[in-house]
Each structure stands twice: as C-alpha cells, then as structure tokens.
C-alpha cells in the first residue's frame, strides 16, 4: 500500500513541480535505502526503522453496524525523520510523528489529526509487545499477546471515537520481492508488508450514539526514504477484500510516467505480484472519481468498486481522499480507496 506522507506545518501545494506529492520526491542523502536483499524479520520489523526517512502503520476497516449501515474506520501513524539520525537524544531527536483517525458513514466523515515529536514518549512504536501510539490513540497487541495477530485499536476526535479489537485470520503478506516493492520506473522502492486478514469487532461513538460493529480490517506496513519519482504527483490505491477470501491490492502512481502495481493474495496467504501488464485500474468519470473498474484478466477478476461516501475527504494538514468501498462484478466484497494529489472541490 502507498500512503501519505508526514508533513508538518503548512503543506506545500499538491503536485509541486520538482518535488513530487507533498515533498515525497525530495533528496534522501544520509538516509538508509530499501535493500532488495534484505529479509524481513518479525517481530523486529513491526517496530520503527528510524534510519529510513518515512514509515507508516496504516489500518483500514470495513465495518457493518448493528443498525445495518456500512462504516469505514481508519487508524494511521506516520513517522518522518527531518534529518538522518544523529547523536541527538530526547527532544533533539529529529523524528516527528503524525496520526490520522477517521470514521466514514454513508453521509458523514469524521476526521482527527495529531502531531508529536519523537524521543520523549509522546508517540512511538515498540516491536514487542507490539504497541504504536500517539497521545491517547493506540494500536497495540491485545492483552496477553505480543505480535500483531490480535490488536486493540482506539482513537478519538471531535465528535467521534472508536474502540476495536482485530484478530488476524491468515498469515502476513510480503509485497513485491520478499517485501521489496518497486514504486516507479526509476527504481523507487519501499519495504512493504500487510496483514489483510483481520476480523473486527468493536464500538463506534458517533454524535447519534454508540454503534456496535463487526467487519474486516487491513494493516499496511511500509518504510522507505524516497518512494516517489519527482514527476509523480499522486496515486490511487485500492485494497479489496472479496467475499471468497481472496484479497487484492491495486495501485497506480500517476504522473508523467504512470506506474501500476499490485498483489493478488489467495485466501491461504499466497501472493502473486502484479504489474501494468496483468492489472488494470480504470478511474470513473470526474476529477475525483467515486468509482473504479479493476481487472485482473489472468485471475478472472473484473469488478467495480464504488465509494460508500463519495465525499470521504480527509481534511487534514495535507488533504486527501480515503474511504470505504463496495465491490460488485465478477466477485463481491468490500474495500478501501485512497486517492492523493487529486484536487478537492472547493478545498
């Protein structure tokens, strides 16, 4: 999965010429670079990799309420190094953290954003027992557990809160070549793995009251130092969970030279990497499409994914679109869509 970048303060304009989306294409001197020969190890790699410039822990959940309504939930923690790690400790650590939380309903989008400095305990990630937190928001191993198989997730903001328990029903999935995922013709890459097999129970607190929910969730873990080409201006990313147990990650990095990649995940956790030759992503009409057609002809997949709430904008310091999908066609199911670098109407 691709994600957003951590940016503090006033965000640069989207698609700034020469620096990619939100500065993601900037120089990386002094930072560690993804290594195709590296082998991911757990629980070590659940933790932070401060020598890399950016990193995220990204959970999205498709939920159904006791009221029968569709809900989407997002819990994301971003780490960004302002400079390569030096001798500085405590406040002098050049790490900053940003977090986004959201609840999406068919007619509303509740968003909250948090910021923190590294080195002083306000935010951080520990590998084992797994815990990721910023302020009182938390995604951590459930009591008695250590890894990420069973998670407790909570966050809150103006007018909303949620508390979820997630339990993995399948193995971790490594994207690309053993978790080394290429993001452009220029060889930009990241380390990237997912846990797409969570089942979820929990409670949402919304202005209208509390709603008990159940559903599925998908956790993405990714770290890199320069995931974008300078000419790449944004991306569309879809994570689809089919009712037959299969999962599909499909993404297109937009720009002068669009780049398509993805992973088709079997119900048993087996992974097939996809590229532009065997994966099709076709945006619906409009500058901010509410519908995508996704095809994997080799696997007989031809589906239409449609936003539950076409207005699911994340009104954060760097705005983007993120919300739940309903999937119809050759297979049915649900999913999540993220669109960055697209103009927000009136925003």
């Amino acid at each position, binding site marked *: 999965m691709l994600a957003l970048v951590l940016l*503090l*303060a*006033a965000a640069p304009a989207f698609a700034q010429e020469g620096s990619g989306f939100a500065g993601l294409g900037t120089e990386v001197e002094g930072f560690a670079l993804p290594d195709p020969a590296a082998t991911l190890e757990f629980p070590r790699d659940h933790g932070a990799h401060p020598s890399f410039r950016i990193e995220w822990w990204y959970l999205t959940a498709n939920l159904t309420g006791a009221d029968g309504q569709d809900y989407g939930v997002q819990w994301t923690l971003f780490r960004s190094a*302002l400079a390569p790690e030096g001798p*500085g400790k405590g*406040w002098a650590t050049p790490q900053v953290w940003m977090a986004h939380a959201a609840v999406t309903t068919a007619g509303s989008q509740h968003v909250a954003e948090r*910021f923190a400095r590294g080195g*002083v305990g306000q935010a951080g990630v520990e590998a084992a027992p797994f815990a990721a*937190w910023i302020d009182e928001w938390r995604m951590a191993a459930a009591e008695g557990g250590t890894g990420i198989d069973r998670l407790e997730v909570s966050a809150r903001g103006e007018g909303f809160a949620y508390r979820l328990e997630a339990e993995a029903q399948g193995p971790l999935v490594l994207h690309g070549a053993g978790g080394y995922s290429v993001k452009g013709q220029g060889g930009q890459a990241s380390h990237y793995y997912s846990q797409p097999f969570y089942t979820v129970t929990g409670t949402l607190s919304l202005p209208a009251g509390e709603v008990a929910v159940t559903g599925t969730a998908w956790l993405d873990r990714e770290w890199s130092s320069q995931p974008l080409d300078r000419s790449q201006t944004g991306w569309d990313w879809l994570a689809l969970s089919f009712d037959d147990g299969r999962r599909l990650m499909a993404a297109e990095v937009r720009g002068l030279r669009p780049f398509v990649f993805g992973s088709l995940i079997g119900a048993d956790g087996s992974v097939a990497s996809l590229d532009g030759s065997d994966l099709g992503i076709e945006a619906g009409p409009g500058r901010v499409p509410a519908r995508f057609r996704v095809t994997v002809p080799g696997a007989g997949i031809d589906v239409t994914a449609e936003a539950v709430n076409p207005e699911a904008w994340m009104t954060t310091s760097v705005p983007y679109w993120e919300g739940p999908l309903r999937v119809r066609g050759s297979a049915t199911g649900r999913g999540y869509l993220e669109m960055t670098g697209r103009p927000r109407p009136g925003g």
Partner: protein
Amino acid sequence: MRTPLGPVLGALMSHWRRRPLQLVLLLTGLTLATALWSGVQAINAEARASYAQAADTLGRGRLERLEPPPGAALTDADWAAARRAGWDVSPLVEGRLRLGEVRVSVLGVEPVTRDGGPGDTGEDLGDLAGPGALRAFITPPGRGWATPETIAGLGPDAPLDLVADPDAPRNTLVVDVGIAQALLGMEGRLTAMTLAPDSMPGLVPLTDLIPGLLRHPPGGGDADPAALTASFHLNLTAFALLSFIVGLFITQSAVGLAFEQRRGLVRTLRGIGVGLGTVLGVMAAELALMALVAGALGVLLGWAMAAALMPGVAATLSGLYGAEVGAGLALRPGWIASGLGMALLGTGIAGARGLVGTARLPLLAGGQAAAWAVAAAQALRWQGIAALALLAAMPLALAWGGLVAGFAAMACALLAAALMLPVVLDAALRLAGRRVRGVLGEWFVADTRQQLSGLTLALMALMLALAANIGVGTMVGSFRATFTGWLDQRLAAELYVTARTEDEAAAVRAFLAEEADAVLPIWSVDAPLGGVPGRVYGIVDHATYRDNWPLLDAVPGVWDRLAAGQGVLVNEQMARRQGLALGDPVDLPGGAQPILGVYSDYGNPRPQAMLGMEDFLARFPAAPRLYQAVRIAPARAPALTDALIERFDLPPGAIVDQARAKSVSLQIFERTFAVTGALNLLTLGVAGIALWAGLTTLAAMRLGQLAPVWASGLPRARLARMELGRTLLLAAGTAVYAVPVGLGLAWMLLSVINVAAFGWRLPMQLQPGLILQLGLAALLTALLAGAWPAFQLARLTPARLLRVFADER
C-alpha cells in the same frame, strides 16, 4: 441684538497682539504641563502594551497554565503521561540566561503541540513551514526567535542560530523546549505546561497523573508583570500629575492676568451693546483654541521626553521586576487623547475663574486692574480655612490605607501647604514690617506684601517643586544609604556559584569543600505564601547568617531555633502585607511554622520565607540543588574563581563575586530612581518659568507703584536692584517654607507610599547637602526669573515713568 462676531473677536484678540509675551507664557505653561503628563502616560502605555504582548506570546494570556507543586519538578515524562492520557498540554521551559554581559529571558516552547498545533505557529514563532525550518528549530544548536534589538544585544557569539522577529517578546529568546533545556541546564525538566481549552470529557484528572499539580486560570498568575509593576506606574502617574499641576500654575497666572487686563475692554464692549454670551463665548473659544494648540505641542514634546526616558524605564522594570519592556516608543491613541484632554481640562480650570469673574462684572464698575490684587488679599483668609480643611482630611485618607489613599493624603498635604504659603509669607512680612525702620524699608515691605498676591501662584509652584525635590531626594538618599548597608549584610559571602546540573553542583561542592573556608548551599523553590506566589529558601546554619543577616525583628535564639526546624524567617514585605508578627504561624507545604524573625529584603516584589536546611529538604525533597554561597579570604577569591571555571568549564555568569553582585544591585537601584530624578528637575524648571511669567506680567502693572518712588528720588538702578532683591527674598522665604513640607513629603513617601507600594519601610535620613543645593537652586531660579524684569526697569525711560502721572494711574 445680534452683533457681528468679527469685531468682537478682533478687539479681544488684540490683547495678545499687544502682549505677545503673555501669550507665549500661557502657551508655554500649558505645553509644559501637557508634555509632562502625556510623556509619563506614553511611558505607562508602552509598558502596559509590552506586558500584554508578553502575556499573549507566552501563552499566559489565553491558556490555562499548569505548574508543578512547590519543590517538585515537572518532567518530560510527566508531560508525555498527560498527553497519553488525552490531555492537550504543551510544555514550557522558562528561565534567564546570561550570555556574556547580557541577560535574556529564555522561553522554550514545543511547536508541534502548541495551542492550535503546528499550523498555528506562524503567528508567534515566525515561519516554521517546511521540514527544513522545523528541523533547524528543534535540533541542536537550535534556532531562536527574538526582536532585532535583542539579537543586536546578544552579539555574534550566541550559541544558536538567531532569527529576527519584531513581534517576539522583549529581551526574550524563543526557542524549542529541548533547546531551552540545554541552554538553561534543565535537561528533562519543564517549568510549566499550557492546557488548551475544551479538553475532551472523561479523562483521568491531571492531579491524579501529576500529584499536587497547580492549575492557574488563563490571563493571570504570578508571572503577570502588570500586577507587579502597578505600583511603579502609579508612582510615575502621581509625579506626572504633580508636574501637570505645577505647569498649570503658569497657565493659571497668565490666564488670570489676561482676564484682569481685559476688564476695561470687556466693559467697553458690553457698553456698546455686545451681549454677555457673545463675549463669554468668544473668550471660551479662544481658550479652547489655545488649549488645543498647546496640547498638540505638549503631546509632541511629551513624546520626545518619553522617548528619551524610555530606555531608563525599561532598564528599571527589567531589573526590579524582571518585566521586559521595549526601549522604543509607539504613538498610541490612548495617551495622545489623554494629553489633549488634560490640556483642555487644565485650561478650563485655569479659565473658569476668569470667565465667572467676567460674567459677574458689573457693567458700570470701573475696570481697574488693581481689583485683582484687592480680591486676592481677601482670599487669603479663605485659603487658610481651605488649607485647614485639607489637613483635617489627611488623617482620614491615611486611615483608609492603601497606595491610592496614600497618594490622596499626600495630595491633601501638598495642596494645604501650597494654600498656606501666601498666608505664612504675608504674616512673616507683616512681622518684618513692624521691625523695619525708615520710610524706604517700610515701603519695601508694604510693596512686597502687595505684590505677594500677584506672585502667589508662581511661588506656590516653586514651593511645590522644591518640596517634591526635597521629599523625593530625601527618600532616594535614605533608600540608598539603607540599601547599601543592607547589601553589605545580605551579600556577605565572597562568591556565589550556580551549577548547571545537580551532579555538577555536587562536584562543585566537593571541590569547594577542599578549597574554600565554607560552602553554604542556598536552595529554593517557588511556593505560595499566604496565597500569593512566593519563594521558600533553605539555608544551612552558619556564622555568615548569624553575624550578618539583616534581621528587623527576631525572637531570642532565632538562629538556633531556625536550624532546629522550629520556625521560619519571612521577609518584611510578606510580614507587612499579610499583617504577620513574630510567633504567628505561616502556612507552608508540609505544615505551618511560627515566625522566628523578619528580615529586610529590598528590591524584591514577592513574599519570601527561609527555613533551616533540614526542614526545607524534608518538605521539598525534589528542590533543585544548584546554588551555593562560598566563604573564602577575599584575596583568594579571584584565584578560586579561575580554578572553578577551569575545572568545571562553567559558563560566564555561573560565578558571581560579591563586588559584582553589589554593583549590579546598586546599578539597578540607581536606574530605578533615574526617572524620578529627571522628572524632578523638569518640575523645578517649570516652576522657574512660572515665576518668570508672574514677574514679567506684574512688571507692566507695577509702574503705577514704582513711579512715585522714583519721583521721590530713588534712582532707577537702585529700584531695579530692590525689585530683584524682593524676588530673591520671596524665593528664599518660599525655599525655607518648602523644607519642612519636603521633609513631611519624604516621611510620607518612606512610611506610607513605600510600605503600600513595595512592602518595606525605610528609616529617614536627612540630606542637608541636598537641601542646601536645592535652596541655592531656588535662589538661582529666582535670579534668572527676576533678572529680565529688573533689567527692563533699570532701562525704563524717565518719560515712560512720567507718563504714569499724566495717565492719572
């Protein structure tokens, strides 16, 4: 009948054309009065604006402030725990930093969690947009925001990157919280936290997370410089009002004279049918116009004066109260309006008597100028009665108590003294008249008595100026003498050493134990004393205190009992403000203790208490242990200083020797009174001009009295000398009269105003040199003021004197 305004206006205005000097005097008096008043108002307005800006920038204005309990430390971990419990708190680190010769306030903020989050930093912290700027701000060596003046003062050796921001608080370095900890040697420790409004419901209470945490509501708290400096500004305002009144005397005499001299003209105008309303209207309009012109000039002059005095005021406020005020001055509508308003009000007061007199002028009564003098003589009795009434009101004001009542009592006393001046001088002259032999002598005394009424106002002004100078001079002198003696007692140790960390402090003490005669740790914590923010000190039992500490009052065996933890010492201001006496219990964290002694503590606006070290550490185990006094033979002090710096690589300013501490304290002291000194001098100058104005305007009217004396054979030169002698005699009489008034004023300043404003009472010490100096200044003023009219009299042509008889005056 309606009359055209033009001719009436022309006729009344012609007076000024014929007497331009009178016009100049009137405008000068009013301008000076307005200038002194608006200058001080400008200074006050600037200072208040600085306080408000500081409060806003420091987040004290808008946000609730959370501080650790007295003696406990607030740590980074405490703050992180509060954040992780869901509280929207942002850390603050505050302190003072000495960089070479310069001292600046350091304010450490955390840009990411500050009120409104990182998107809101632009307003106070300049531009932190972009990862580069944020990185430079938060990672060593850090980046500091400060005003261009502050940056210029710091010079090129500042240990961090500096960025100019005109909106930064005065003399303050705004840096990241981590950078501030490093600069101030406060690693891991915070001064306070701010709490954003509208925290979410259902959180674990902050006081459960950080036991004893103190919450201060927005817009106040102990650090509010406006509250601390209120008495200083009230003092300035009182001086400005005094100056204004003195300036008003000039205006009063010039306006009174102008009305008096135009009685004939008014009678003529009325006689030819001009309505009373028209005459009064034109005269009132004339006054209003003059008030506006002089007011505008006065505001400009006041601005210039304030700009010249501002650096001194800023230094005073910084030294005495730690309040940072810029040395610059902005034009603010508030004090401009106040200046013009006071000019109009003053002219109104000065002109009211003239307007009423004109309105009551019987149409057919003679327009004699002498009517003024006759009326004034009758007024003497009334003045005496009014003075007695004012004196009676004084004890009432004193009994009321407080600073404003103190000033009111002082105003009553000064006004009474001013009103009594002509009564006393007249009585003295009458006595002298009985003893004088010879026609010339009798004429001289009688003529002086007659002139007295015309000079009353000018002499009152001179008397007030002299009394104010004597009073303030005596107070400053007494204060200086007491303060110097007190410094000798208080700063008995040879060196004072501040370490950056507790480990370093322990190492320094271990080193000093070998090298010095004695090491006296002095540790302290901020703590509320009687509900007011104050400071509690822990001291060890040592002869340094037993021999030197400036106790005003103490129980027997005070030092033994303090060391045994049986009580507490408090400073004078705390004892006075809270009405405490020996033996009274003082509420302290960890239980009350009885007062064993009261010590003087000049220059400190806050309450203070001292405990024996054991007792102190039992109550405040987490108090920072950084500061110590060192006893050593004075000759060995410099070598020990060098050894300390070399061994511990201490920053400049970590070691203060006794001489330096004293000179800094005395410097602060001198600066504090520099402003009052300047205002005093100006007041005396204004009084001189008032005297000159009175004499000059009288000179023309006195020809009628002088011509017969000249005709009887007295040469003009001798006459002129006698005139000058008379002026000097009156000035001398006024000066003698001013001495007891000034001493009374000094007593009130020392025993009433200082106690109310600062909380300390000082013994009065007479300043004979000062009084002699001021007496001479009064005579010099009179000489300068009287020289010109006397010179003119000497040069008067006989023809002019003869014309007096031809005019039948």
